[in-house]
């Protein structure tokens, strides 16, 4: 997902060709809050017990979390959240979120033992192509959560992963522990030491890859990083997949609230981020603004 939503990504992304496999059927579930902790000084990590969703979710899929009603006024729309981790053994899934408004503010007050209504798994996730080379993940801020499921799958399949984790400061970078656990190679870059600047990151990535192009680049959390990924993907001639955000109501495809502003024509609706995405292919290089 991009911190700027889909704005500025027109022409940069396109719907992927029809998928060949089956997508997990969504369901809704009253998930118990198994753990809730604040990490990186500002992010909330929720571990939710939902075997039916955790066991079936693809990497890059998301859930809609219904914001519980506090006495008084209520938050009406559910909030989309990436499935950061799927822990099939325990039937848990993890989401990490940032308090940005009313909904996340109320969610941040969930305590262990609470039940949260989840709908999921939703959307079309990342798809790791056959090929050589590692998977290159690029995530910034909370955007790391969208890509981490790929590292889980890659570990199971023995595919190496290089994960660029970007954030403002060292302690707000998400995902380092997950990389360690999953045998992925983390590359921590931050604004505070300048390493997250596009040129710096590009240099670091080239050095780490040491001449071996990745088989795919997957990116989430920043328009700038998406542009970098597209440029590198073109150079290496490998696919680039990007996870987008949109304001959502239903999450399953009927409300048409989440159309991405990347329709070809005025009388045709853009793809729906909730079912055609959130993961899209990066567009042809020529389309890049």
């Amino acid at each position, binding site marked *: 997902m991009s911190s700027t*939503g*889909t*704005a500025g990504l027109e022409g940069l992304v396109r*719907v992927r060709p*029809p*998928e060949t496999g*089956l*997508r*997990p*059927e*969504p*369901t*809704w*579930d*009253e998930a118990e809050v198994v753990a809730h902790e604040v990490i990186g000084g500002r992010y909330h990590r929720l571990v939710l017990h*939902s*075997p*039916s969703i955790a*066991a*079936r979710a693809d990497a890059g899929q998301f859930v809609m979390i*219904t*914001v519980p009603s506090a006495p008084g*006024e*209520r*938050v*009406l*729309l*559910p909030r989309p959240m990436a499935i950061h981790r799927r822990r099939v053994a325990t039937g848990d899934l993890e989401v990490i979120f940032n308090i940005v408004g*009313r*909904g996340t503010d109320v969610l941040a007050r969930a305590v262990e033992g609470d039940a949260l*209504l989840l*709908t999921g798994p939703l959307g*079309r996730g990342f798809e790791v192509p056959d090929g050589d080379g590692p998977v290159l993940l690029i995530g910034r801020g909370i955007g790391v959560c969208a890509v981490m499921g790929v590292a889980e799958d890659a570990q199971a399949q023995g595919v190496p992963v290089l994960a660029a984790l970007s954030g403002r400061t060292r302690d707000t970078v998400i995902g380092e522990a997950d990389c360690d656990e999953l045998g992925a190679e983390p590359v921590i870059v931050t604004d505070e030491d300048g390493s997250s600047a596009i040129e710096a990151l590009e240099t670091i990535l080239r050095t780490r890859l040491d001449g071996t192009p990745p088989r795919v680049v997957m990116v989430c959390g920043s328009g700038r990083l998406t542009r970098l990924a597209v440029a590198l993907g073109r150079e290496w001639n490998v696919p680039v997949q990007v996870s987008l955000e*949109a*304001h*959502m*109501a*239903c*999450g*399953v*495809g*009927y*409300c*048409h*609230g*989440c*159309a*991405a*502003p990347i*329709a070809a*024509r*005025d*009388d*045709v*609706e*853009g*793809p*729906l981020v909730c*079912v*055609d995405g959130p993961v899209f292919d990066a567009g042809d290089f020529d389309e890049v603004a």
Partner: protein
Amino acid sequence: MSLATRLSPPALDDSRGAFFDARPPASGDVDLSVTIGSLTLANPVMPASGCFGPELGRLIPVDEIGATVTKTVFAGSRGGNPAHRLTEIPAGMVNSVGIPSKGPRGYLSDLHPAYAELGVPVIISVGGHRPDEYAPIVAELDAAGAAFEINVSCPNLDRNGVDIGADPDAITQVVESVRAVTDKPLIVKLPPMVSSIVDCARAAESAGADALCVSNSVPALPLDSVTLRPALGNVIGGLTGPSMRPIILRLVWLTSTSVQVPVIACGGIETANDALEYFSVGARAVQVGTASFSRPYAMVDIVRELTQRCRAAGATTVAQLVG
């Protein structure tokens, strides 16, 4: 394209299984049925147009609700409005989806088959920019719809931004023209922001409507409070959700006491109790919109609870319950 998505069957430990299976016993004792023209629905609960799609059939037992209502079908192809299309405000949400549509032909080929499979009557919502756009769409869809909902609450490009539905003469024109091409029941869905909803309701009834739906969303302009810029790509959107309820309750009361045909209430209904509020001011059926987003099973819950509350009160109909 969303409906073409191929899905794997849900896992066996699927938590919704219990919900699907928890159908209340067949209700010989309670009769929730409601009649709209020649159509009888098993119960008075249905979705609001634009707040339902066959996709929801994966999450809830749709055959427990009284009917489905499609998103509004326009004559031509429309892409809908730019992002953002949704925002949330205290006790409400505002949408400016803008009614993307693939026209009646696109509806028949891409959408109707999935609706038809759900096992409940399909009410097709039809819209237009000009009064003469409605009848051809209905004619084309006549065989597919169990009934039609005539959405006259769309900004009318010909008329200075005033809704067709705000003008009793335009309503008459639309309804008479549609009545001429179909024998199926016609529900006229009115806009709320009109000087006299009673005049609009009477016009619809006289022109041949079999029911009214009161009402569509309330026009609104939400701003982003930080940037002070419009929160929606289209600037103007429709306010829906619980904060509308007292506004719409008044309109349902005004219309249901002014016409003979049934009034279907729509606005901020989340629970069976909300539905009973509307029944108590004269509504005969209800539509559920915004509530389904957070609680996909809201409609089914309402049907089940209405049944239970009738039973608990020894009533055989909802009318007895609120009488």
